């Protein structure tokens, strides 16, 4: 390895990847040698084998699929409402004064605290989980959309007005694209929130889903399956975030170019 290659390694993502591999290796050795209780810390290799087995048998996907459907259903509803109401709050003072206090009161309450209440109204099935995910996804999108609307350059609004554009057209043609960088930030936060609330709601009350699967595995002393479920969530969360950034980079390419030029 030459000097320059070494520099590249120490300052690349591969350093972090190697660190993860090192932790897993220590885990493997510690578990194999009995330094840690192998019941709570099964060997990584054994977990990977179990993971592969439940993946091949289709058991994992049977649990994962309903979870993902709930998550996306709730996320899309929550994010869409967040954008819509955020646009209205940002552009109509009356809507702002009407809704600002209630959002400030509701927002700091951790979403899982609502689950018992929501169960009273919607039961323990999909409706409850989708509602919870939508509710929790709603706030980050709402607040960021609102901030984005407030940050729209008045020169752009005036430009649209000199071309005779106002009202809903102005909101759609000018305000929405201008606020898009903020909206994407909110949607990225909400994506992580949606994953969390999905798992929690399935642990509280469900008969399927990845959250249920992890909790049931732990209660049934199927510890390797439990870890396999957690690893699955890591992969799911990571993939969604990557996918989201990929889409964001496409849609907001103009924004990165524009801010780059402003800085020069």
């Amino acid at each position: 390895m030459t000097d320059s290659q070494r520099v590249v390694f120490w300052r690349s993502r591969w350093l972090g990847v190697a660190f993860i591999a090192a932790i897993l290796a220590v885990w493997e050795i510690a578990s194999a040698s009995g330094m840690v209780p192998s019941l709570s810390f099964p060997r990584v290799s054994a977990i990977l084998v179990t993971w592969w087995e439940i993946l091949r048998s289709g058991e994992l996907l049977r649990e994962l699929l309903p979870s993902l459907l709930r998550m996306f259903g709730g996320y899309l509803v929550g994010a869409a409402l967040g954008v819509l109401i955020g646009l209205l709050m940002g552009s109509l003072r009356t809507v702002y004064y009407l809704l600002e206090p209630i959002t400030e009161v509701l927002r700091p309450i951790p979403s899982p605290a609502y689950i018992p209440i929501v169960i009273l109204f919607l039961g323990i099935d999909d409706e409850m989980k989708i509602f919870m995910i939508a509710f929790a996804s709603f706030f980050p999108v709402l607040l960021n959309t609102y901030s984005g609307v407030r940050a729209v350059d008045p020169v752009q609004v005036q430009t649209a007005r000199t071309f005779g554009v106002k009202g809903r057209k102005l909101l759609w043609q000018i305000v929405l694209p201008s606020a898009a960088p903020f909206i994407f930030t909110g949607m990225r936060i909400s994506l992580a929130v949606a994953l969390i609330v999905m798992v929690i709601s399935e642990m509280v009350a469900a008969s399927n889903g990845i959250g249920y699967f992890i909790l049931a595995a732990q209660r049934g002393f199927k510890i390797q399956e439990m870890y396999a479920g957690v690893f699955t969530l890591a992969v799911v969360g990571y993939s969604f975030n990557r996918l989201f950034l990929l889409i964001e980079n496409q849609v907001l390419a103009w924004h990165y170019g524009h801010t780059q030029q402003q800085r020069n």
Partner: protein
Amino acid sequence: MTSSTAAYLCARGVRKAYAAPGGSTVALSGVDVDIERGTFVSIIGPSGCGKSTLLQIIAGLVPASGGEIFLNGRKVEEPPPPVIYVFQQYQRSLFPWKTVQRNVAYGLENRGAYDAAEIERRTRELIRLVKLSGFENHYPWQLSGGMQQRVAIARALVCRPDVLLMDEPFSSVDALTRAGLQELLLQLWRELKFTVVFVTHDVDEAIYLSTRVVALSRAPARVAVDIAIDLPHPRDQIATRELPRYLEYRHRLLAQLFAEEGLESTARAAA
């Protein structure tokens, strides 16, 4: 106000006061201007005297606190379709998520008068007129300042406005680029025959471009000097600026501006 003797574009006793902490700032105190169709009128005045405010009121973008604007005998309340405003801050006025082509087409798309093919044709024609052919698919932030201002001009003219209101459009580009933009604007004005109200703080630019120059006083602004510029067209960046009459206009307007700034001695020394 529908009599045929009234000018095409009139400001009648236009006042504007902005709310300010502990009172209000009076920007305009009764401005009267009559502008004939097809003329090129520049408005000059000290910085902060209310030039932009006046132009935005004429455009229907900002409501006046008193007085009225009439376009072709009709009172202006909302931005009137035949009047297009070109902003001083072209970087902020162009839409960064739209290409040059889509920026220029913007005004036409919202008129609903033409189908997509006709919009495309007219847009390309204007892009050619401002010498940006080949840059249709670039984004504004990929262009130089002068090119961006040309996109803004094309976007304004593609609607074939009767009146172009321009707020210091060339103040933030270098001298050579500015001369190029001035020539482009004069050429388009001669060909397309629209009316221009042009705000600038540059006396030379005002005289060179205009058929008439209106100088405002310090805030609260009123009309201080109003002179017709009788110089031959087409103008020439070098020869026109050397004409004795050009220098006479320049002398009068600079003396007025210096007096407004409390620089009487300089003005007298120059005289």
